[in-house]
């Protein structure tokens, strides 16, 4: 039937990865292994609901689309290298461009809610605050499923928390290689759940209880943030739920 797209709808995953000089050594090596594992895991996914397209944006020295949206099967991962400053604002700008242009990119159909994964171990070295405000307040970017991992004590956790604002997800912290690896396992798992869900736009709730082994020990811990509900790291609440409960008159002239 020539009027119909015979394709799975795409589920875009964008990795926003800090490749600045401070990531040099174990951090970048672990990140490479973790991303490679994620892609390998995506390759094994045989969903009939959605197809994952991964893009990687790096910010180390300069912001760069390291990998445009590509099906997992078509990705030959080439290891990232770490050097230079941390131009996070530039990376966010590129990320926004990718999302705003998603419909004009030939991914094979109307995209499901993109997942954006931010990993950083330090403070941005460019002016990023205006871009970050814009990113989280723009509907198409601000409604994406966002994750954030801080590596070590020098990560800018205030920036990472702001990146997640508007969601119930919490910033995660990895103190070592195992933590980075586990974070990527969690994100991979959550994304794969979405690809097999009857509604891939719904982000599965990820709590300490159903993370199981992912939260064993204290390798990964949610940053303490007492004002937020404890342990829940993900929960997308449908935007319309709150408006109706006490309103018995849904229709007004």
């Amino acid at each position, binding site marked *: *039937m*020539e*009027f*119909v*797209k*015979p*394709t*799975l*709808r795409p589920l875009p995953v964008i990795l926003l990865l800090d490749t600045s000089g401070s990531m040099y050594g174990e951090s970048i090596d672990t990140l490479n292994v973790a991303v490679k594992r994620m892609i390998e895991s995506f390759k094994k996914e045989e969903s*009939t*609901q959605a197809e994952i397209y991964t893009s990687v944006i790096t910010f180390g020295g300069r912001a760069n689309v390291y990998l445009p949206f590509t099906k997992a099967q078509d990705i030959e991962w080439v290891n990232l290298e770490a050097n230079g400053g941390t131009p996070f604002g530039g990376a966010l700008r590129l990320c926004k461009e990718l999302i705003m242009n*998603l*419909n004009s990119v030939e991914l094979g*159909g*109307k*995209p*499901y*809610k*993109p997942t954006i994964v931010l990993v950083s171990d330090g403070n941005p070295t460019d002016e990023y605050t205006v871009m970050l405000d814009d990113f989280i307040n723009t*509907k*198409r970017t601000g*409604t*994406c499923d966002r994750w954030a991992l801080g590596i070590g004590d020098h990560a800018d956790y205030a920036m990472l928390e702001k990146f997640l604002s508007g969601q119930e997800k919490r910033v995660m912290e990895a103190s070592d290689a195992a933590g980075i690896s586990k974070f990527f396992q969690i994100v991979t798992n959550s994304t794969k759940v979405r690809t097999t869900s*009857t*509604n891939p*736009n*719904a982000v599965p709730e990820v709590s300490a209880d159903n993370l199981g082994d992912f939260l064993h020990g204290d390798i990964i811990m949610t940053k303490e943030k007492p004002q937020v509900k404890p342990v829940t790291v993900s929960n997308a609440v*449908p*935007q*319309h739920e709150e*408006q*109706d409960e006490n309103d018995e008159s*849904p*229709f*007004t*002239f």
Partner: protein
Amino acid sequence: MMNLHSHSSNAQYAWASVIGPSHILNELPNQDACAVLSLKEGMAFVVSDGVGSKKHSDIGSKEVIKAVKRAIKTWYQFPHASANHLLSLIHTYWEMGILPYDRDDCSATCLFAVILNDNRCIIGQVGDGVILFKLGKDHYVLHEKEDDYVNVTLPLHLARRKDWKIEDFFIDDSFEILLATDGVSEDLIKEKRFHFMTDLVEKISDVKGQKKKNSKIKNMLKKWGNPYNSDDKSLIIYSRRVMNGKYEY
């Protein structure tokens, strides 16, 4: 304006609804509902898509059909009533119709068109799906959907007046309309949607008898061009053309 004849003798239409593969797999019912209603007030077309995750959404979608029918019949008795009143009645009848179930458990979309005997046409949509129509040579999409992750689809019971997409006009020319749930609309190539509509009209023109016309559509939905689409699929196609001042087909 041309003196147009009654719709019934010159028009043709067909409708079908097929259960999605994932619903068969999970032993769920078809959560879509669709109907062509031939009423003394005119002709009405309704499709509704029950929200997949809700346990009584199949009831919700069927009640949308009944609510639209009841609303038209009541509304028609008041010559000065506006389209807003019709919408209000649809809400009210649906809310009563689903009782004793909870509104949220019965979440469903509502796409309808009614062509009254005086050729006034009211088209309305809340929630996902698509309504395409041609009036003379002009093509219209009632509501162009944004990415669905940006705007969560609104079921009927959560919709306010501002959430309704409505057109209210008189038909004085050839007219075709397609109403489809998102199981159909999500797969359509945007630039080819109206070709699809024309193709449907041609398909049902090839056969005589309502059952055969419906079967033609049903077979097409069963052999849907996207094997990955696991959703329920429903559509209604309606067409009438004007030739020499008369509708012909």
